[in-house]
């Protein structure tokens, strides 16, 4: 189980050697043309294929779709993958379900030109915006439904779902939490965990931002958030364990700061697990969906997008406790799954979404100060 640096590098070489040796050279789908004469890998909408039916036929011919970093209990992806696979008879290869956003980009670069390379990405903000040159622009059928703030002007990416930063807690083990300041109380000694290191994980970054807002900070000033965690640590309340479903269910992490939909996924298994979105500090975050421009299955990748942004796909997201990007429009049209959407927290009042510039500045501050605050 112990890895040396050499072993890590060796593993990289192994992957490389293995790929050269094992992965079949991919069939040259990207060179294929649709009935309307556009290269499949450059098709910008279903119309380029000659309509939705032609897209489905092209995707079925490819027969496979490679997805990466989609945990089955995250935003209902387990069910979504199965529904897509059943509906179109396309095999979905789900690689490294627990990988981070950056791993998706790394995999796409390392496996470029191979049949195992990821077809589609689901990325956090900073990774997505830093890699737009790797995405193939595409407009789904429901593209006009999606508010302009949630899609790239050049169609390279579209937000797929989002959520709010929340505090989840085991109400059987700890007294109820109503605000961020509660976390400093002695009842929570050694019990408060954050989903990852904010200099590494997007969720933890948003967690620190949420705490900063509750402490009088702002999206331009996360220092009060770091200061709060320093106090939390000094009080002995901060639990530096990376929370996972296993640690939550075994009671190792009784209080977890994380996206509301990830906390909601725990409630399904642990009924006493409750969720609160601090009312004065609402941080929202959306994920970024994009097609790999070197996708080995370019038609299936495009069909996947169509599926995710269809009413069916969006309702499946909603059932996973996330807010689908078309939620408002679907509510107006009455096509949304009411039961699912009612479980998603309703927010009155301001919602904070950091801009890329604000994220950069906050990141810089955290890189310099986080380790000192909790070390």
């Amino acid at each position, binding site marked *: *189980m*112990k*890895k*040396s*640096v*050499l*072993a*890590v*590098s*060796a593993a*990289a*070489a*192994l992957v490389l*050697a293995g790929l050269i040796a094992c992965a079949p050279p991919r069939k040259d789908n990207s060179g294929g043309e649709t009935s309307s004469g556009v290269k499949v890998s450059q098709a910008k909408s279903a119309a380029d294929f000659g309509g939705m039916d032609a897209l489905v036929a092209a995707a079925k011919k490819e027969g496979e779709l490679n997805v990466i970093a989609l945990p089955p209990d995250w935003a209902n992806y387990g069910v979504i993958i199965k529904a897509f696979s059943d509906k179109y008879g396309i095999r979905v290869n789900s690689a490294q379900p627990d990988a*981070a*956003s*950056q*791993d998706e980009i*790394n995999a796409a670069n390392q496996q470029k030109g191979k049949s195992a390379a990821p077809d589609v990405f689901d*990325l*956090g903000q*900073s*990774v997505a915006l*830093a890699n737009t040159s790797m995405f193939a622009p595409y407009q789904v059928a429901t593209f006009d439904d999606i508010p302009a703030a949630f899609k790239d002007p050049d169609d390279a990416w579209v937000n797929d779902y989002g959520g709010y930063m929340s505090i989840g807690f085991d109400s059987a083990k700890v007294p109820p939490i109503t605000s961020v300041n509660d976390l400093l109380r002695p009842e929570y*000694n*050694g*019990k408060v965990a*954050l989903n*990852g*290191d*904010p*200099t*590494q*994980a*997007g969720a933890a*970054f948003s967690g620190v931002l949420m705490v900063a807002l509750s402490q009088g900070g702002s999206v331009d000033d996360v220092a009060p958030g770091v200061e709060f965690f320093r106090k939390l640590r000094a009080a*002995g309340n*901060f*639990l*530096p*364990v*990376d929370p996972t479903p296993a*640690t939550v269910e*075994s*009671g*190792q*992490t*009784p209080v977890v700061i994380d996206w509301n939909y990830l906390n909601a996924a725990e409630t399904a298994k642990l009924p006493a697990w409750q969720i609160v979105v601090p009312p004065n500090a609402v941080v929202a975050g959306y994920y970024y969906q994009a097609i790999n421009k070197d996708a080995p299955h370019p038609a299936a990748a495009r069909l996947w997008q169509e599926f995710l942004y269809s009413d069916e796909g969006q309702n499946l997201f909603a059932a996973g406790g996330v807010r689908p990007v078309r939620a408002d429009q679907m509510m107006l049209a009455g096509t949304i799954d009411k039961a699912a959407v009612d479980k998603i927290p309703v927010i009155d009042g301001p919602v904070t979404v950091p801009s890329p510039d604000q*994220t950069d500045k906050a*990141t810089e501050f*955290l*890189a310099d100060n*986080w*380790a000192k605050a*909790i*070390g």
Partner: protein
Amino acid sequence: MVRRLREGLPLLPFLAVVVIFLIIPTVTVIVSSVYTDGVFSFDRIQALFSGTALSALAKSVLLSGSTAIIGAVLGAVLAWLIVSSPPSSMVRRAVISLCSVLAQFGGVALAFAFLATVGLNGVLTLWVQQVFGWNLAGSGWLYSLTGLILVYTYFQIPLMVIVFVPALEGLRDQWREAAVSLGASTFRYWREVAVPLLTPAFLGSALLLFANAFAAYATAAALVSQGSPILPLLIRAALTSEVVLGQAGFAYALALEMIVVVAVVMVAYNALVKRTARWLR
């Protein structure tokens, strides 16, 4: 010449493995840490002297050094106890087998075992809290350097036993008998014969333990999720962070730094082993 070649043939697969898994990665790391986008530059090496990187290096050395010393001393004592029992003894065979297993029992399983036992919400912690009212887990020492030292010791001691038993077995009875018949007391025999003979083997084993702890990754990764205090964790952060991007070059430089440290340790280890080998032939 032909005969030589034929004799060397079976070594080819081994050579191929060494090239693929050792030489290529090492060269990649070295080249990547001084070339940025095809241009030679020391920027990445320079980043090794930033506060974060230096503190990670210091903590890594402290962690490896302290667990190597603790592991070497306790392991040597245990090895001596094992060797003093007869070779056919069940206890001896059982302990040796157990050590072989435990020496490899690092990683996530070991980390979780400690978390679930003496972590802030561990079974033992909660029980002691209820019955005696003490807080075993304190302010979360298990998740810091102190915790890593304890957990690493768990696989360091068995490793020491495995590598040190052969050295102890190499001490011949005749030497002790000769010393005793020349009038030496047991203490004098240890001081003037056994200890000088064993010192190189002991130090060599300690260095091996150092390298073992220095490169260990999974255990620490499972135990410490905040702040990347040691080098392997800092490399992980640089490679996979989805918040601070574009640090892969820094990871290469850190890897180079680790290779240099381990290389120094291994050269020292070889020198010491050579000295002992003379006596254990």
